[in-house]
């Protein structure tokens, strides 16, 4: 059979079904897109406010920081659009027993549980991010940029998305252990909260550098946005290349780890439930 194309086709059907569903609640869909954009606008507003009192934050001037924010928006919209509804639903599936049906299907369970719902309205932010990026780049001095940076930017955005997915899915998988996990989203928010700032701000004392180390090497959320954002905002510097290389390693390790955690959690479900 066309095994090769099976998963992309399945993904297409998931996406299609989700879109049909979203379109049946059209008004709601529109409100969601608008409020997502509103949310980002508020976030942007906050930094505009901050930059009205200062010229730069740890070497990031306003337009460089806009690139940073645009990168955050790209990555967040992808993660929220593709994976967030599924991760949230996973704990619901455990509670209602709907997980049983997922286990019966002759396809990879993690694939199925990660992608069955797509939240199209979150992808609206993706376009807003594009506009913000274009605007920021216009005001940015790009002398000294290496052409490869423009290609590496989308690549590292993808890496960032995959790392965040791994963290999120691992958290969601813990709900299989706990039976119910309301604070999944909170937990997620607080962890990714660290990633939404330039890593340079974590410095100056022991706490700062240990935070930076932990969230770079243990739970690698700090590189999720920092690596691609720097790729697009500033000329490449050798001292950051090691970090860019590490990001690839971190992506692979995160994915493997999330799969391992998921499998373990599933085992506990299968042997602990009635």
């Amino acid at each position, binding site marked *: *059979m066309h095994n090769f194309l*099976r998963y992309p*086709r*399945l993904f297409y*059907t*998931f996406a299609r*079904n989700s879109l*049909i*569903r979203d379109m*049946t*609640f059209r008004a709601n869909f529109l409100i969601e897109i608008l409020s997502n954009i509103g949310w980002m606008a508020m976030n942007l507003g906050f930094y505009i406010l901050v930059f009205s009192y200062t010229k730069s934050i740890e070497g990031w001037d306003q337009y460089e920081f806009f690139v940073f924010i645009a990168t955050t928006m790209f990555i967040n919209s992808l993660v929220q659009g593709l994976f967030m509804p599924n991760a949230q639903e996973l704990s619901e599936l455990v509670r*209602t*027993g*709907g997980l*049983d*049906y997922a*286990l*019966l*299907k*002759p*396809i990879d369970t993690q694939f*199925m549980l990660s992608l069955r719902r797509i939240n199209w309205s979150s992808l609206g932010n993706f376009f807003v991010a594009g506009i913000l990026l274009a605007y920021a780049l216009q005001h940015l001095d790009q002398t000294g940029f290496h052409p490869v940076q423009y290609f590496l930017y989308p690549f590292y955005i993808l890496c960032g998305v995959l790392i965040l997915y791994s963290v999120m899915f691992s958290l969601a998988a813990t709900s299989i252990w706990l039976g119910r996990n309301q604070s999944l989203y909170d937990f997620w928010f607080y962890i990714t909260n660290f990633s939404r700032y330039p890593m340079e701000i974590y410095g100056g004392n022991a706490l700062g550098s240990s935070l930076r180390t932990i969230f770079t090497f243990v739970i690698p959320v700090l590189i999720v946005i920092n690596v691609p954002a720097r790729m697009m905002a500033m000329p490449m510097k050798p001292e950051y290349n090691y970090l860019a290389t590490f990001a690839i390693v971190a992506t692979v390790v995160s994915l493997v780890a999330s799969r391992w955690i998921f499998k373990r959690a599933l*085992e506990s*479900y*299968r*042997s*602990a*439930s*009635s």
Partner: protein
Amino acid sequence: MAFIEIRGLQKSYRVYQKQEGLLASLTGLFHREYRNVHAVQGIDLEVEKGEFVAFLGPNGAGKTTTLKLLSGVISPSAGEARVMGFVPWERTNEYRRRFALVMGQKNQLWWDLPAAESFRLHQQIYAIAPTDFDRTLGELTDLLDVGKLLNQPVRELSLGERMKMELIAALLHSPEVLFLDEPTIGLDVIAQHNIQKFLKHYQEVRRVTILLTSHYMKDVAALCQRVVVIAEGQIMYDGSLAGVVDRFSTHKVLTLQFAGDQIPSDLDQYGELIEAVAPKVKLRVDRTEIPKVLAALLAGHTIEDVSVEDPPLEEVIADLFVQSSEQAGKKSKEVLAVGHSGR
């Protein structure tokens, strides 16, 4: 080797034992008591290809757990099982393509979408060839008479219609084995009957092997040649439905019609009086006593008509469940003790 073969299958799991009271809840934050539940306690069973077997038993007897074990959703604590040669809990894709599980209390269709969209998704998940898919879907929708409903969002369907759609979803990939867990639960009599008729027809034509659990004796009577009674996670009976009565009913119902309008007042000594509307009387009499009682009654009274019947099946089963749940109540303390020493 039999088509489905189960040997010494066991399943226990831990549940959090919630303590009463505020203080206990607080200590529960730090230390938790768990209780071991032995849902299935050593089941042996063989089912041949094309059989339609019903699992009967009170709530919590282990029927659903057994079906979940056989479909590989959960893994057992001990014992083995083979379905078509596969070990279910290895969950190979090959196996998962060849059976289906329908749970009456859970739905797998997309709630907000027309069933047709969910079916198309199933086609891809199970890699069903388009021609097969169209043919099977056509047949099933005709049989269940839901062709017009395919394009309506599932949430707008009635419970009975939704169950039909769930069945179609489960049968699209033409499974060889079908596990049905309470497929008619919550349905009205007509919808129940429709589902029964469909299952009977489908099974006769396709010769699939079906294991069914149900609370409705009518389902069982209409569909299954073979009945397996499960209580406390063990098999108590395995045979024909009629055999259940022979095996478990200890009484027969004696109906007497006396001459005249009088009913003798000393009938209590023969058995339990069920109904007494002159001139008819219904008596529940111990099986072994029937000849003696009949002889005595005929000798002492003028009787115009007499009949001896088995009690209704539902009653026998209900009695059986009451008995076993009483036993289970007694036994649960032992189970608890075993649970603790076992860990």
